[in-house]
């Protein structure tokens, strides 16, 4: 049974220094508010996992929360680079950042394996690319029936996965719709999970295209309206494209970023 708590309580109880943490969301439903709370609580040495690290990961990296990033595409979508990410990779600022780099297909299948209780997944992937030469978690595997060679990647099983969803009911059942990304797999692959939601409602009325994560598959739920900003929650909010554009200047400059960080640290958590 998912327990309904505040965001501060949830992060405090679920995320520890050194954890492997996935904040998933594929453009839609990115759990940004939870990322800010991790910054406020000053977590360190996290291994951050995400297919598409964007602004909130740039912020976590810039704040010095991470020692490693596992990912397949890191950028400010539609805008450009993640400057805090680049600064960490290229200049170890504020701390060195190790990277483990995959493709989307590889990362998606790593979550699928994790959700399925398997140690690895098989795909037609990476063949001919330079990725296997820099990433140890890509290996060949041979089909025992045809002899064909394919690619294996190990399961991802984060200590904690955080996602954002539209709604939960008071029992902690979670409902989300629109682009679903890899969120279900990321939650099911994790040892513990937090879902921040736009609202907690009495009843989850059916919505076309919606999926439900039963309460017993989620550790904690926190009501955080707007918790996906600047991304969006279909049916609740629009993507704040201006924020993505504005982040470029903030992220580009260490001092601008320090100002931003000071503000976030002073915010009262949701």
């Amino acid at each position: 049974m998912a327990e309904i708590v505040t965001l501060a309580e949830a992060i405090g109880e679920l995320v520890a220094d050194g954890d492997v943490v996935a904040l998933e969301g594929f453009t839609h439903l990115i759990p940004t508010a939870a990322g800010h709370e991790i910054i406020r609580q000053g977590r360190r040495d996290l291994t951050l996992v995400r297919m598409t690290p964007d602004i909130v990961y740039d912020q976590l990296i810039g704040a010095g929360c991470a020692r490693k990033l596992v990912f397949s595409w890191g950028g400010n979508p539609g805008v450009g680079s993640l400057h805090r990410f680049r600064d960490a990779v290229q200049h170890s600022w504020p701390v060195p950042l190790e990277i483990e780099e995959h493709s989307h297909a590889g990362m998606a299948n790593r979550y699928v394996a994790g959700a399925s209780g398997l140690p690895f997944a098989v795909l037609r992937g990476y063949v001919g690319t330079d990725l296997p030469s820099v990433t140890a978690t890509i290996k060949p595997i041979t089909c025992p029936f045809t002899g064909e060679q394919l690619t294996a990647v190990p399961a991802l099983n984060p200590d904690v996965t955080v996602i954002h969803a539209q709604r939960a009911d008071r029992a902690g059942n979670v409902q989300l719709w629109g682009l679903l990304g890899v969120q279900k797999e990321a939650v099911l692959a994790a040892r513990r999970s937090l879902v921040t939601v736009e609202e907690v409602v009495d009843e989850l009325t059916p919505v076309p295209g919606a999926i439900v994560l039963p309460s017993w598959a989620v550790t904690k739920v926190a009501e955080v309206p707007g918790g996906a900003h600047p991304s969006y929650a279909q049916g609740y909010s629009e993507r704040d494209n201006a924020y993505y554009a504005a982040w470029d200047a903030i992220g580009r400059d260490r001092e601008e970023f320090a100002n931003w960080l000071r503000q976030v640290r002073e915010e009262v958590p949701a």
Partner: protein
Amino acid sequence: MTHTADEMMAIAAARALSGRQRVFVGIGLPSTAANLARRTHAPDLVLVYESGTLGSKPDRLPASIGDGILAETADAVISVPEVFNYWLQPGRIDVGFLGAAQLDRFGNINTTVIGGDYHHPKVRLPGAGGAPEIAASCREVYVVVRQSSRSFVDRVDFVTSFGHGTGKGDRERLGLRGAGPTLVITDLGVFRPDPETAELVLTDMHEGVTLDQVRAATGWDLRTAPEVGRTPPPTTGELAALRALKEASR
């Protein structure tokens, strides 16, 4: 109407798509071109986005790969694992439409690191995203890229997505089932792999572009097709449709 080189590139890329082709669409230039094609001569194109939409029909350009309009107008919305495993990997997609930071003479794509070595790059790019498997599994790959001697290189610094490797036959040897890059469209012209060597050769130049210009923007000793064609300039209708699409997206 006069037009910019970027507009010519988008229109030339759009023209490459036709009929009911299933197109796996990267964000940026490919998405612009694919949506333009759907709005002009190819209304039945099936646009597939890696965020998990099959048959998206946006009436403006999506601001990101996960723009809500892609889901709202799709025939089906599916999870990201499903789009890669059930739809891309088995070869159901006709055309993979990709951009590139660096592209080399054999159509290999780099979107990972430029300069230095992998661990100490001069420029850290966003990384692979869906591209390696799009390049591997689509029946064909079209690349659309702004051309310069920095982006059009003899050999990419990092092979993020495999094109034709070091030449003809490499894909077959690796067991890749798609044909790889069969068409490259830039702001200067159109390139196709030589049938014998798989090296990219110039097959068409856009209006007003000279061969010297193309050579200057190519980082290897460029060969040309026996006859280099001229891209027909944008029609009034094409330009109007492109500008309307961009206007609707502001």
